[in-house]
Structures are given as structure tokens and as C-alpha cells.
């Protein structure tokens, strides 16, 4: 038993180091600071556009314009429940799709860049009736009632580390499944060593959160 202690301690240290990395976008696949173009420390800019300029000139052909600020993807930070466009990627998933469009970020995850194994276009990701990786569809109690293979998201716990809340609270956005239901882009709750997944995918645990198989 005594001999095992150093080994156990080493393992614990290793595990803790992994968890430390899991807590931040730094070092994650969306940390673009290794590229020279990004000014020091401004890790947020590729996705969160700054408002830097104090005043901008009004467009010469529309001098009566009063609002000068653009809203990204039609989403405001205080998101009112707006009517989503059915069967189209909507809301928060648009943020992912503007880069993961098959050309800018073709197949870039982890150590793999520029490959073709995992494509964000027709075959691998899409909207219903795409079977492989659908997004932006409503997943609620009504859907679960129609499909015995789905758990009710309003009652089933998400099982995410440190949470006792339901799938609906932890993983859905306005009752819709989006890219961020499973992928944590900020890497604050992602499991290290996965594709920024919010839960371990070993033994299909992530899939089985919602699918009752």
C-alpha cells in the first residue's frame, strides 16, 4: 500500500494539471494567440468583435442613420425569445458556422489542422433531416413524448460535472439543441482531450445523455 502512494500522488497531480487546463480558453483550440496577427493578450477578438472607435462617420448615402452599431447574427446579448426559423441553423450556432463553414476552418481541431476527416458541411453537420449531427432543432418534452428513444430534457439531469440541473437548463438554448449543447468553445467546462465536449464521450456517455438506448 505504501509503495502505491507516490504513484497515486503522481496520478492525482497529473489529473489536476488536466483540470487546470480545462478551466480556460488559453491553450484550447480557439486560442489563436500563437499566430502573429493577434495582438498580445487579445484572445477574445476573433469571435467577440470590439467596439473601439469612439465615433464613426455616417454612411455617405444614408446620413439619417441613427444606429451606428451592428448586431452580430441578429442576436442581442439579452436574448428575447424570438421565433426561430425552423429547420435552419439559428441563434447561437451561427457564431460557430461563420468560421466552421468548410473553408475557413475546414477540419481544425486539436492537433489536426487542414485535414478533411471532419467536415462541417452536408455529411457531418446540418439541420433535420440530417441524421449525423443535427443542430438548431427544438428538443422539448413534446418531442420526447413522441419519440421513446429520447429522454425528457425538462426532467433528466444533464450529468455534467458539478451540476444537478436538467438537460434543458444546462444544454439547451430556448429549448433548442445547438452546437454549444455539446461543445464548450471557451473550454471552461470542457473535458480535456475531447473536441471541447461538455461531457466524456467514452462509452457514448454524451450521446446517452439524451438518447435512451
Amino acid at each position, binding site marked *: 500500500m505504501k509503495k502505491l502512494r507516490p504513484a497515486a500522488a503522481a496520478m492525482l497531480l497529473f489529473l489536476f494539471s488536466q483540470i487546470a487546463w480545462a478551466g480556460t480558453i488559453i491553450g484550447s483550440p480557439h486560442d489563436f494567440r500563437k499566430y502573429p496577427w493577434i495582438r498580445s493578450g487579445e484572445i477574445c477578438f476573433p469571435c467577440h468583435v470590439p467596439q473601439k472607435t469612439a465615433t464613426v462617420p455616417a454612411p*455617405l448615402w444614408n446620413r*439619417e442613420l441613427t444606429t451606428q*452599431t451592428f448586431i452580430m447574427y*441578429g442576436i442581442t446579448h439579452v436574448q428575447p425569445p424570438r421565433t426561430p426559423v425552423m429547420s435552419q441553423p439559428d441563434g447561437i450556432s451561427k*457564431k460557430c458556422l461563420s468560421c466552421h463553414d468548410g473553408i475557413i476552418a475546414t477540419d481544425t481541431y486539436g492537433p489536426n489542422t487542414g485535414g478533411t476527416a471532419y467536415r462541417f458541411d452536408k455529411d457531418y453537420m446540418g439541420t433535420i433531416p440530417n441524421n449525423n449531427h443535427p443542430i438548431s432543432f427544438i428538443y422539448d418534452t413534446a418531442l420526447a413524448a413522441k419519440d421513446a428513444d429520447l429522454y425528457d430534457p425538462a426532467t433528466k439531469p444533464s450529468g455534467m460535472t458539478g451540476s444537478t440541473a436538467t438537460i434543458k437548463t444546462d444544454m439547451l438554448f430556448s429549448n433548442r439543441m445547438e452546437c454549444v449543447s455539446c461543445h464548450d468553445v471557451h473550454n471552461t467546462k470542457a473535458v480535456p482531450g475531447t473536441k471541447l465536449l461538455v461531457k466524456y464521450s467514452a462509452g457514448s456517455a454524451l450521446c446517452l445523455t439524451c438518447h435512451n438506448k
Partner: protein
Amino acid sequence: MKKRAFILSILIICMGCALIPEKPAAPPKTIFYPALPQQPRLQFLQSISGESDLGKKQSAFHEFIFGKRREQLLGKPYDVAASKGKIYVMDRMYKKIVILDLVGKKMSFLNDDGIARLGDPAGIWVSEEDIKYVADMQRKQVVAFDKSDHFLRTYGGPEIFEKPVDVAVHGKRIYVIDMDKELLFIMNKDTGRVIKTIGEKGEFFKPSDVTVGPSGNVFVTDAFHFVIKKFSPDGKFLGTIGFHDNQVGGFARPKGAAVDKNGRLYVADAAFENVQIFDDQGRILLFFGGPGSGPGNLYLPAGIAVDNNNTAYFQKFADPDFKLEYIIYVTNMFGKNMLNVYGFGHWIGTSLPGEKNDRP
């Protein structure tokens, strides 16, 4: 007498049926940018998502017998170009070039059998002579098709390109932007030889699009510097347009760009879901589109093209008080309106209050 009365009554009944007015369709709302009473510069004309949007209607009889024709729609349009009578859409879902034939009112795929097989097309340019140039990421080449849609030749290869994502042609020069090498290649259109490369010092980060204006100036979408960079035809750096900001004139996710005959630059931004127009000094003139799924709105736009060849075809969609000068196409990666058509023009109606009819 009775027989005549009978026939007459039948006729009257039939006339009565014919005279029951059909519920009139609500007239489509005219979308001007900027909206009236300001001087309109652009009008949203039409969205094209499938063959039926080209005007060929299924006859009521045909529909009665065979049912409503289910048509193939555009998949995921990314880039667009045009020539006389045709719009070419580079479609990322089909991995093919879709040809929208405005005259024949048909939608078809550009035949890329055999050596012309497209692997992973990313950008398209069509010259005045209707030669199609397609940047292909998998082939690491630009593939050219002649005006009869036959394979013509290729440019480059794995020894030159890593990830060619867009192409533009002007005079005897071909411009290819390589996103992985982060270089702009200037090549000779006849020999295929590389004349020059721009960006060796790491000036670009993940440049995604290239376009050329009528004067030969080259515009590169330097995607992760969030600006458009302008070069002379020989590759001399002339300046930047736009900045990284969420305000008018700024970019968050700039993608396709196009230049009109007056040197005005159109840039599509996938994050703001709009197109901004800059004059030849880089000053912001207007923006249009905006997020949403209504007429004229954009949905993760990607590609944009200016078309001087098909203005007459689209005039029928324009307001009678708006004279079209040229057409602008914008592709939407998602949404039900796949290819938006806008017309640039000027107001010919009664004088508008405020500004005179000046046109910078």
C-alpha cells in the same frame, strides 16, 4: 323558348363563376436601401433558391395530373459569378458549380467529368469571355472551363498551392489567394507561370477571398486582420478598407468582396449579415441586408458578385420609379433564400424631398 332560357341560364351561371374574383396576391413590398424618402441606391429584387425562381411555372394542368413538382434547390451557395444569361453558383453542399440559365430558365450542374472533376471547390471567377475559373482546395489548382463549359486547363498544383480558396482574373493576370500559405499569387494567364507572390512577410492572416476591380486593382479579404487590403495590378500595397469594430464601416467576419465599374467596393460580412459599400477612397457609403429571413435579409452570407450583363433581365422586378444600372448577387450559406439579387440604380420618379438627385 324554354331551351333557350335553359341555355341562357347555364351561360349566366358560368359567367357568374368566371366573375368571382380571385383573391389578389398581396403586392411584394418594395425594399429600397436606403428606404424612402431618402434617395434609393439599391433595391432588393429577388431571391433565387431553385429552378422555379427562374420563372418557368408548372402549368395548373400539369400540377393537377402529376402533383406539385419537387424541385432541386441550391444546397449551400458560397461563391457566385455571372456572365450574359447565366449565374454560376459555387455550391459547397454539392461540391459543384450550379448554372442558373436565365434564358432557358433551367438549373443544372457544370459538367466536371473526367479530368475536370472538382474535388473541393472554394471560389469561382467568370471572365467577360465566359471562361470559368474554379479554385479547388483538394486539387490544389485552379480549374478553367471554356465558354462551352468544357475543360480548358489547370493552373498551379500541389507544388505551388497549399489551399487555394479564391481566384480572380484581369487582363493577362490570374490572382489566386492561398489561405494556408497566406499568400496572394499573381500568375500569367497564358503560361500559368507565377509572376509574383504577395504576403511573404506574413502580412495576411487566413485571407479568404480575392476580387479585382475594372481598373485592375486587387482586393484581398484579410479575414483575421478584419480588413480588406487593396493592391495595384502589380501587387503594390495601396491601403486597407474597414477596421475591426462592430460599428458602421467595421468588420467582424468579412468574406466575399466585389467591385463595381465606379470602383465602389462591396464587402459581405457573415457576422453582421450585411453588405457594406465603400467608395474608391474607402469611405463607407451604405450597408444593406441585415440579419433575418425576410426579403432582402442575409443569412450567413459568403459570396458576392457584381453583374453588368443581366440588368435587362431583372428590370421587371424593379420598381417602375427605379432604373437599374447593374445587379449584385449575394449568397446565403443557410436560410430559405439562397441567392439574393439586388439592383443598383437611381430614382427616376418624382423628386424626393431633402437631397437633390446627386450621385457621388
